[in-house]
C-alpha cells in the first residue's frame, strides 16, 4: 500500500467523461444528495450568523461598567448558541448521511468491478498483473469514496462560507474588507507557487519510496541465496544507496512542503494585525464599533480557512478523478463475447474431440499454432509432449474456449464448439493445471468446489483416490482445516493432490491434466494415475507431461514443436520412427 499523505497530482485524461460516469453512481442517491445540499447551505448560513450575533452581544457588553444591557446580551448570546447548536446537529447529520452515500457508492463500484471481472475473458487476466487489478479496488475506489465523503461537501460549504463571509464583512465594514481583499490573493498565489515547486519533489519522493520498496521485496525474497553466497555486505551496501535516496527525497520534498503551513499562518496573522490596527483607527473615528471589529475578525478567520484549503481540495479532486478513471477503464474492458443465440447446452457428452487445421496466436502477428489437426475419440488418452514453449498449454486454452481459435475448427461430438454454450462446454471437462489453485477455505470446501452439495463420503472418496486422505487425517482439524493464503501450510505436491481430488469429484466426461503431477513424487503419481485411469475409463483425457514415462501408454501421442504437430502415433510407433520423440525419450537414459 502506498504510504498515505503522498498525493501526487495526476491529471485524468478525460476529466469530463469520468465525471459524467461518476455522476451516474451518484444519481441513485439524488434526492438524498439534494437534501444534503440544502441542509449544508442552511447550516452554513446559520453558522455564518453566529459571529454577527456574537459581535452584537459583545457590542452590548462593551457599553462599559454599569451600562450593560443584560437582556440584550442574553438575547444575542442565546440566539448565537441556538444557531451554533442547530448548525452542529445538521453537520453531524450530513456527515452520517454522506458516509452512507459515499461508502454505498464505494460498495457499488467494488461490486461492479468484480461482476465485470467475472465476465472478462481469460486473456485479460493473462495480460494484466493481479496487483494492478486489485489496487483499483483496494486503493482507487477508496480514494474516490473519501473524496465524495469529504471534498464534495467541503466544496459546497466552502463556497457558501466564502461568499457569505465576504458579504457579511462587506456589510460590517467595506473599509476593513479591503485588508482581506489584499491578503487573500497573496495567499492564493503563494499556494499556487508552492504547489508548482513542491509537486515534482513529492513525485520524486513517491518514486524513491517505490524504488526502495521494490528493492526490499526483491532482496528479501532471495534472502536464502544471498546468505548462501555471502552476498549480504554487497546487498546492504546497495540498500544503503537506495535508503539514502529515499531519505534525501523525503527531506527534499518536505523541506519545501514544511514552509507552507507557517507561511499561511503568517499571512493570516498579518491580516489579523492589519484588521486590528485599521479597525482601531476606524474605531477612533467612530466608524466601527468594538463588536463589529470582533465579528469581523471571526468572519475573516472563516473566510480564509476554505481559501487556504481550496488548493488542496482541487488537488484531491483531480487525483480522485484519475482514480475513478482507472476504475472506469476496467469497467469498459471488452467482455467475453456472449454465446451465440442458437447455442445449445452440451448434454450427454460422448467425448469425441476433433481439431481441424486450427491456427492461433496470442498476439495477432505472432502465430503459435500454425495448422493443428487431431482427433481424440471418446474414451481415449491423448498425450501432448514437446519442449517448453511449444504450444502445449495453448491447445488446452482453445479446447476450454479460454481463447478462440483464429482459423480452423474445433468440434466436440461432431459439432463446432461455438454452437454450445460456454458454460456447458467447459462443464464437460474436468481440469487439473500446473499452477495449482486453492482458495482460502477448508480442505473440504476446496475439494467440493466443483460439485455443489457434495456429501462427506463423496469428498472422502475423492481424497482417497487422490492419495491425499491420510495426509488430511493427520491434520488436527482434518477436512475442516483451513488452507491459509496461497496454501502456505501445505507443500506443492500436496496442493496438486488436492486439486486432483477436486477434479475426481467433479463428474465430467473429459479430463485435462496439464503437468498435473509435476510436483508429486513418481510413486504417488503412478498410483494416482492408475486411479484416474480407472475413473476415466470411458472418458477422453488430454495429458501434458514432461515425464515421458507417465504418458507411454497413451492411445495417441502428439509431439508438438514450434506450434506444429511434428509427429503423432503411439509410443511404439514413434520410437520405431527414431524421430524427435525418440530423441526426447532416449535423453532420459543418458
Amino acid at each position, binding site marked *: 500500500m502506498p504510504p498515505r499523505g503522498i498525493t501526487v497530482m495526476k491529471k485524468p485524461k478525460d476529466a469530463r467523461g469520468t465525471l459524467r460516469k461518476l455522476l451516474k453512481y451518484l444519481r441513485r442517491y439524488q434526492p438524498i444528495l439534494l437534501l444534503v445540499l440544502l441542509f449544508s447551505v442552511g447550516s452554513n448560513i446559520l453558522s455564518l450568523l*453566529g459571529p454577527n450575533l*456574537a459581535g452584537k*452581544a*459583545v457590542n452590548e457588553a462593551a457599553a462599559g461598567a454599569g451600562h*450593560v444591557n443584560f437582556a440584550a*446580551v442574553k438575547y444575542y*448570546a*442565546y440566539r448565537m448558541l441556538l444557531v451554533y447548536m442547530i448548525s*452542529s446537529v445538521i*453537520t453531524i447529520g450530513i456527515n452520517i448521511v454522506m*458516509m452512507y452515500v*459515499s461508502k454505498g457508492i464505494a*460498495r457499488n463500484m*467494488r461490486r461492479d468491478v468484480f461482476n465485470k*471481472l*467475472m465476465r472478462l475473458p481469460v486473456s485479460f487476466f493473462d495480460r494484466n498483473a493481479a496487483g494492478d487489478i*486489485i489496487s483499483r479496488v483496494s486503493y482507487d475506489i477508496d480514494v474516490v469514496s473519501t473524496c465524495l465523503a469529504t471534498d464534495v461537501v467541503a466544496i459546497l460549504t466552502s463556497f457558501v462560507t466564502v461568499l457569505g463571509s465576504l458579504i457579511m464583512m462587506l456589510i460590517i465594514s467595506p473599509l476593513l474588507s479591503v485588508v482581506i481583499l489584499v491578503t487573500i490573493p497573496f495567499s492564493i498565489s503563494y499556494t499556487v507557487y508552492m504547489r508548482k515547486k513542491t509537486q515534482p519533489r513529492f513525485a520524486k519522493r513517491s518514486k524513491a519510496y517505490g524504488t526502495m520498496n521494490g528493492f*526490499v521485496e*526483491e532482496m528479501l525474497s532471495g*534472502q*536464502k*541465496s544471498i546468505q*548462501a553466497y555471502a*552476498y*549480504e*555486505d*554487497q546487498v546492504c551496501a546497495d*540498500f544503503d544507496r537506495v*535508503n539514502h535516496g*529515499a531519505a534525501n527525497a523525503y*527531506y527534499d520534498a*518536505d523541506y519545501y512542503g*514544511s*514552509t507552507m503551513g*507557517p*507561511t499561511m*499562518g*503568517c499571512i493570516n*496573522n*498579518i491580516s489579523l*494585525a492589519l484588521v*486590528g490596527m485599521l479597525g*482601531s483607527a476606524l*474605531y*477612533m473615528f467612530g466608524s466601527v464599533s*468594538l463588536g463589529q471589529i470582533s465579528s469581523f475578525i471571526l468572519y475573516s478567520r472563516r473566510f480564509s480557512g476554505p481559501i487556504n484549503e481550496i488548493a488542496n481540495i482541487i488537488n484531491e479532486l483531480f487525483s480522485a478523478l484519475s482514480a475513478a478513471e482507472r476504475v472506469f477503464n476496467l469497467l469498459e474492458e471488452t467482455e467475453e463475447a456472449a454465446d451465440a443465440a442458437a447455442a445449445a447446452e452440451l448434454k450427454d457428452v460422448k467425448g469425441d474431440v476433433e481439431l481441424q487445421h486450427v491456427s492461433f496466436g496470442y498476439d495477432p502477428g505472432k502465430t503459435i499454432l500454425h495448422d493443428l489437426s487431431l482427433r481424440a475419440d471418446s474414451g481415449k488418452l491423448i498425450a501432448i509432449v514437446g519442449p517448453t514453449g511449444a504450444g502445449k498449454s495453448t491447445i488446452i486454452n482453445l479446447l476450454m474456449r479460454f481463447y478462440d481459435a483464429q482459423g480452423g475448427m474445433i468440434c466436440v461430438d461432431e459439432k463446432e464448439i461455438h454452437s454450445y454454450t*460456454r458454460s456447458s462446454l*467447459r462443464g464437460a471437462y474436468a481440469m487439473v493445471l500446473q499452477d495449482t*489453485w486453492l482458495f482460502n477455505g477448508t480442505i473440504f470446501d476446496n475439494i467440493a*468446489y466443483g460439485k455443489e452439495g457434495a456429501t462427506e463420503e463423496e469428498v472422502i472418496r475423492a481424497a482417497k483416490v487422490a492419495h491425499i486422505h491420510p495426509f488430511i487425517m493427520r491434520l*488436527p482439524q482434518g477436512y475442516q482445516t483451513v488452507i491459509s493464503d496461497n496454501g502456505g501450510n501445505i507443500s506443492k505436491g500436496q496442493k496438486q493432490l488436492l486439486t486432483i481430488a477436486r477434479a475426481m469429484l467433479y463428474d465430467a466426461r473429459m479430463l485435462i491434466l496439464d503437468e498435473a503431477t*509435476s510436483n508429486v513424487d*513418481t510413486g*504417488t503419481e*503412478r498410483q494416482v494415475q492408475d486411479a484416474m485411469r480407472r475413473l476415466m475409463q470411458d472418458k477422453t483425457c488430454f495429458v501434458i507431461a*514432461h*515425464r515421458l*514415462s507417465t504418458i507411454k501408454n497413451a492411445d495417441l501421442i502428439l509431439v508438438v514443436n514450434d506450434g506444429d504437430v511434428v509427429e503423432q502415433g503411439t509410443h511404439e510407433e514413434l520410437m520405431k520412427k527414431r524421430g524427435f520423440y525418440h530423441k526426447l*525419450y532416449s*535423453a532420459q537414459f543418458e
Partner: protein
Amino acid sequence: MKLILSYMKKYRWTIVLALVLKLAATMLELLLPYVLEYTIDVAAPAKDLPLVIVCGVVMIVLAVLTCLLNIRSNRTAIRNSSRTAYDIRRDLFFSSLHLSGRQTDEVGLASLISRMTTDSYNVQTFAQILQTMGIRAPITVIGGIIVTVSMDVGLASILLVILPIMLVVIISVSLRGIPLFDRVQQRIDAIVRIMRENITGIRVVKALSKEEYERQRYHEANEQMNRADRKAGIVMSLPGPLMSAALNIGLTFVILIGARRVNNGQTQPGVILAFLTYFNMILFSIMAINRVFMMASRANASAARIGAVISQSPEPVPLPEEQLAKTASSDLIVFDHVTFNYNAVNSNAGSKEDEPQPALTDISFSIPKGGSLGIIGATGSGKTTIINLLMRFYDATEGNVFIGGKDVRGYDVKELRQKFGTVFQNDVIFADTLESNIRFGRSLSSEQIRSAGVDALADPFISAYSDGYRHTAAIKGANLSGGQRQRVLIARALAALPEILILDDSSSALDYRTDAELRHAIREHHSESTTVIIAQRVSSIMGLDQILMLDEGRIAGLGTHSQLMESCPQYRSVYETQMGEEV
C-alpha cells in the same frame, strides 16, 4: 515506543534545537491575540493612534518571527526524522537479511517486507509529528490557559470546565475508532483475498462455471466491508462537530459571564474578544493532540514489529571449540546420525505443535572429496532439509554434520557457505544484468562468468541477445523462460568453481535432452567439485556415485544405482514407473 526514542537519541541535540525553536515560535504566536486585545482595549479607547500603529507593527513582527522560527524548526525536525528513519531502515534491513531460516519462518516473508515499508514509514511520520505538532499543541493549550488565566481568572474558569469535557469526548471517540479501523483493514484484506483468488484461479472458476458462486462469496465480503467502513467513518466524523459545539457553548458562556464582569468593572470588553481567539487556538490544538495520539498508537505497533526483527541475534555464531563434535572420517561431507525437527526449539506457534514428526530421522552418510550424491524421495520426505543443515541454515536437533572433518557449527558461517555453489528450489533471479546475476557480488572475471555460462548451457541463449551477458533480467527473471532461469542459476552456482556443488531440483524445467547435456558438462568440467543433486527424475541422478532414497525423513536406501535396484524396492519402483519396465 522505546525503540523510536532510542533511535532518536542519536540526534538529541538537533531534536532539542527543533523543540526549542518550536517552543519559541508557539509562545510568540500566543502573544499575538494578547497584543490585539491591548490594541482594542487600551490603545483604541485612548485614541492614541501612534500606539495603535506600534501595536500593529509589533503584531506583524511577531507574525513574521513566528513564521521564520516555525519553518526553521520544521526543517530541523524533518532532517531528524529522515535520519532516524534511515537508521532504522538500515538496521532493519541488515537484520532481515541475516535472519536464520528458523527466524524467517517465524516472521514470514510478506510480513518482513511490510515491516520494511509500511511500518518504517509510520515510524518516520510519527518521529516528525512528535517534534512539531507534538510540542506545539500541548504548549498552545497550556500557554493559552496561562494567558487567559492571567487576563481574567473568572472567564478562564469556563475554559477549565470545558477542556476536560472535550478531552473525554475526543479520547473516547478515538478509543472506539481505532479498533473500528482495524476491522475495516481486515475486511478489505478479505475482499482483496477473494479478488486475488479469482484472478489467479480464473481458469478454474470459468472451467467449473463458478462465476455466480464467486460473485455471491464476494458480495458477502463486500457487504461486511461496507458496514465496517461506514461505521468507522461515522464514528470518526463525530469529534469535529462535537468539538465545535463544545467550543461554541463555551463562547456563549464567555459572552454572558463576560458581560456581567464588564458591567461590574472587573474586565475589559477586548478581553472577551481575545478569549474568542484563544478558544479557537486551543480547540485546534486539542484536535492536533488527538491526531498525535492516534499516530502514536499506530507507530507504537509498527515500532514493536520492527523491534521484534532488529532484536533477533542474526546469523548463527560459531560454537566454541569444546562444544564441537569430532569425527574420525576423512570424507568431505559427513552426516552422523542426524535428526532434525523444524519445530523443536520454539513451538510458540500453536498450529505447528501437531507436527511432532521430525523432518529427518537418524540420517547417516558420507561423501568423499570429489564424490557425488543424488537424493531422491517423495514430496516432503526431507530432501531440502539435508541441504539446510549442510549449509547451516538450521542446526541439527540431534547428531552432527561435518564438512572437511570439522563440525559445521564450528565454522564462521560466511567461510562455511563460501565452500558452496548452490541452486535452491524456487531460487531467485534479480533485476540486474545476467552477468551480475551470475557473479553475485564475488570477484569473478568475465571469462569465468562466460565459462560458467557455457558449462550451464546458458551461453547459447545469452549470446543470442544483442547485449549478451549485459542483458538485463526483469524482476524475478520474468522475461526468461523457466528453463533459461534454471540455467542462469546453475551458472551462478558453477562460476566460482565451488568445493561443493548443490543442485536442489534445479533442472525440472529442462527437457531430458538438455538435462543430460548439463550433467555431462558438469561431470566433464567440474570433476573437482563434490556434488549433491536433489531430483524428482531418476535419470538426473542415476549416474552419480551414491544415491540416497528418502522416505518420510528416513533412509530407505543408500548406494549406487545398481545396488539400490537390487536392495531397495522403493527405488526400483520409482525407476520402473519413470523409465518403463522394458529398459
